[in-house]
């Protein structure tokens, strides 16, 4: 290792949930709800990263590849239609090479008014082992690719396949990105310590991520829907005291399967009709937080 590893990454101070400055969301809403579809491209025959294998089987891993391809042929539109029907914009975790491979999917998301942040070039190219120049190259590629394809400037980052280096967060702040989705330490946005500029974490979620729901906890579609409702109800209740954030991270090839999309659509309807949710994009949550709450939190931190 060129840099010493740290037992504590030093990204934030300990700030207990109890006794924090109050977060007030627009319109007096209790919980900011954002939906994060991962629009991804997995390569059929990617080069090997020395620290992580892409596919468990020899290439082509037909089921692994084709399962994810289902997103880009079938389930993206199924998921997106359900979201649009109940008024949920997406904040897209984007494998930016999808802009080249399937511009139709990216254009559909853009036309729906969704926001894009980077999830790396491909979900089969990992940051592990990159030097600083290489990591800068994928950040610059991300900014350029999304701008050319959508006219949008990315404001956030979710590391490709959640692969980080110790310099990732410093670099994205240096490039002017506003938020990271890679930290799971809180139910509210938090300042992140970076070498220059500023950065906040916006709660994403592993626990209610559809991948965890279906492939870690092995939930049925209705159990997963019930999980999302419980997550929402609790965060809305606590958010009456100080605003919380609920993220629903999705993969179309999972949530957009025919046996899952119906129960999921019912969840969206429940949240939309409840009235306590500020249904927002990640960038809107970041804007509000920076404008009203960041300075106080950063001082406290």
């Amino acid at each position, binding site marked *: *290792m*060129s840099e010493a590893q740290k037992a504590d990454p030093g990204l934030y101070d300990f700030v207990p949930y109890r006794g924090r400055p109050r977060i007030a969301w627009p319109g007096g809403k209790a919980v900011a709800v954002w939906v994060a579809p991962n629009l991804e*491209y997995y*390569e*059929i*025959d990617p*080069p090997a*990263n*020395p620290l992580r294998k892409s596919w468990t*089987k*020899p*290439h*082509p891993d*037909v*089921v692994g*590849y*084709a*399962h994810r*391809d*289902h997103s*880009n*042929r*079938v389930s993206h*539109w*199924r998921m997106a239609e359900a979201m649009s029907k109940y008024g949920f914009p997406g904040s897209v975790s984007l494998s930016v*090479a999808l802009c*080249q*491979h*399937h*511009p*139709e999917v990216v254009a559909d998301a853009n036309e729906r008014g969704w926001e894009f942040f980077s999830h790396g*070039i*491909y979900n089969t*190219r990992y940051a592990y*082992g*990159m*030097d600083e*120049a*290489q990591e800068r*190259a*994928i950040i610059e590629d991300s900014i350029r690719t999304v701008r050319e394809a959508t006219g949008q400037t990315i404001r956030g980052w979710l590391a490709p396949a959640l692969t980080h280096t110790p310099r990732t967060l410093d670099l994205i702040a240096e490039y002017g990105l506003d938020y990271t989705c890679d930290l799971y330490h809180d139910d509210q946005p938090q300042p992140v310590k970076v070498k220059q500029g500023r950065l906040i974490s916006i709660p994403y979620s592993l626990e209610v991520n559809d991948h965890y729901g*279906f492939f870690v906890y*092995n*939930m*049925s*579609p*209705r159990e997963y829907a019930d999980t999302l409702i419980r997550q929402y109800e609790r965060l809305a209740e606590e958010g009456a005291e100080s605003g919380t954030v609920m993220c629903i991270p999705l993969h179309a090839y999972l949530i957009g*399967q*025919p*046996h*899952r*999309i*119906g*129960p999921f659509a019912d969840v969206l309807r429940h949240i939309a009709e409840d009235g306590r949710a500020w249904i927002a994009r990640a960038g809107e949550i970041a804007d509000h937080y920076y404008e009203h709450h960041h300075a106080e939190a950063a001082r406290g931190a």
Partner: protein
Amino acid sequence: MALDPAYLEYPRRREGYDHDLYAWSSIFDRGVLRWPGDKGVAVWLCVSLEWFPMIPSDMPFRAPGHMQTAYPDYRHYTAREYGTRVGFYRLLDAFAKAGVRASIATNGAIAERYPEIIADIVAGGHEIIAHSTDMNGTIASGLPEEDERALIERSLASLEAAAGRRPTGWLSIARSESWNTPRLLKEAGLAYTCDWVNDELPWRFANGLINLPLNHELSDRQIITVQQQSADSYARQMEDAFDWLAAEAGSANARVLPLHITPYIMALPYRIAAFEGLLARLAARPEAWFATGAEIISSWESQQ
């Protein structure tokens, strides 16, 4: 430390796929498709009927459901045979009771060892899909091309000899293919494979072979064995899927609901009633067209 510079080069970053096997298309942009009788949802029953040699092979990999203990693994050998001797006949009876026909994806070894079971399948009007030789007949890149070609041919020859008819469809074990498989299946004269789960309607490879997606997420293996859910939950999920697909098909389009069933999983005494109930409810749905894989392919092809 840095990665090899090639790790940041993307030679196949281009419009369309990073391979040339098939072309991209969105299911929502393919024009009108309708099943016979003006039906919206083809319900495709596909049963995997398999023989696991008690001496497992890991070349190129060990099949799901294969032997697990030290030799002799009587436990798994006989539990799989239970599915073939008892469970499969429960399924045949359930299909007859519901008045529906299925595709039986079976190993060539079933035909060689138990020709009477093939006769019963044929007598019931069901389709036979070729499903390799036996459960040691796995395919993945690294399997020599000549061995793969011989495996496909041996499977087809065994099934043709017992059934009197050469199968037109293919299902690889664990849906696992090598780079050569789509070409070798085409060369063997097969019309379709069921291995690629990327879609919910048939589509064509560049070489003309058709893929009829057999959704692994909807299989009893995935839902019951892997995800450890109940047969009742499985049935509920299939009905939820049917409801969604029927609504999506509406009156002007069509979808396929594949029910991928394994005798030693679904056809146990405590599970079979849930499956029979599901069949009865789906058979009563006016939108449902129960069809074999070959029938779905034929209807789809006639509308292209």
